[in-house]
């Protein structure tokens, strides 16, 4: 059922967009334009992001990740490392999840993986600079000062809870980042 539903929906979507263009149906054309804008944006970022992720997978040894981010590593330092990694992440969650998977598969603790996801949502440097330029540095500072400790605390709690339940992160089918 599920295997057939998705292709069917995609075909419907394609037909809808195609017919919209022929018939000059505005909502359909707007949807297609949004699709193109976003796709372009992602295609600019994703290739670089995945080359970097690939290099990370090859160059960074499992032992290194375990030593700094795994069980028995310093909790404080582990968060410092993932914060730095998150701050320099580009793109959105669609880049962060593959990176998180790489960290996890190389032995990072669940707490640290969740911390990375949370941090990459809120403290990417380019995004924050952009935000500050529109809403003021004070706004960004308050937002970071309040959300970062909460993200770290909740990652600790949720990660510990998941570890107890024997949670394993799964590699997505075919490792496709987007579908």
């Amino acid at each position, binding site marked *: 059922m599920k295997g057939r539903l998705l292709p069917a929906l995609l075909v419907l979507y394609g037909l809808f967009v195609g017919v919209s263009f022929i018939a000059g149906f505005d909502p359909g054309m707007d949807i297609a334009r949004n699709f193109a804008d976003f796709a372009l944006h992602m295609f600019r970022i994703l290739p670089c992001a995945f080359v970097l992720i690939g290099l990370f997978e090859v160059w960074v040894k499992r032992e290194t990740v375990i030593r700094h981010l795994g069980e028995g590593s310093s909790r404080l330092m582990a968060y410092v490392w993932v914060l730095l990694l998150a701050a320099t992440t580009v793109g959105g969650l669609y880049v962060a*999840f593959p990176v998180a998977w790489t960290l996890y598969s190389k032995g990072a603790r669940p707490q640290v993986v969740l911390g990375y996801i949370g941090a990459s*949502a809120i403290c990417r440097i380019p995004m924050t600079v952009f*935000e500050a330029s529109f809403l003021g540095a*004070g*706004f960004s500072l*308050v937002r970071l000062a*309040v959300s970062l400790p909460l993200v770290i605390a909740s990652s600790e709690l949720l990660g510990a809870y998941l570890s107890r339940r024997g949670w394993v992160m799964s590699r997505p089918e075919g490792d496709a980042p987007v579908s």
Partner: protein
Amino acid sequence: MLVLVSAVLYLVPDDSVYRLLGVEDPWLGMLLALTIGSITLMPGFIAFPLCGILHGKGVPLMVISAFTTTMMMVGLVTLPLEKTYFGMRTALIRNSVSLLIAVVVALATGLVFGELGLL
């Protein structure tokens, strides 16, 4: 995912975000901000200029921070993607916790910028 995003961006276009977040009642604005932010995924180069305009029009910063924080941390549109990595249960927990964090951030913003009196 691209398909979903393109449809959601259409269904929640800039001017309706603009209208909805600009409502008179800050409580309602806050609620709407949290809802819209949780559903949508907007590239920062669209979202922040929009927020800048909203702020210029007098929308409280706490409503804006509710919107941007949920937009960054909570993703209904990316839930299918997140599910493949984390599993549904964990993805739902993470998103719910993020929503709570966004509420706290918004209230803190209100506190710092002296907007809590509006509530």
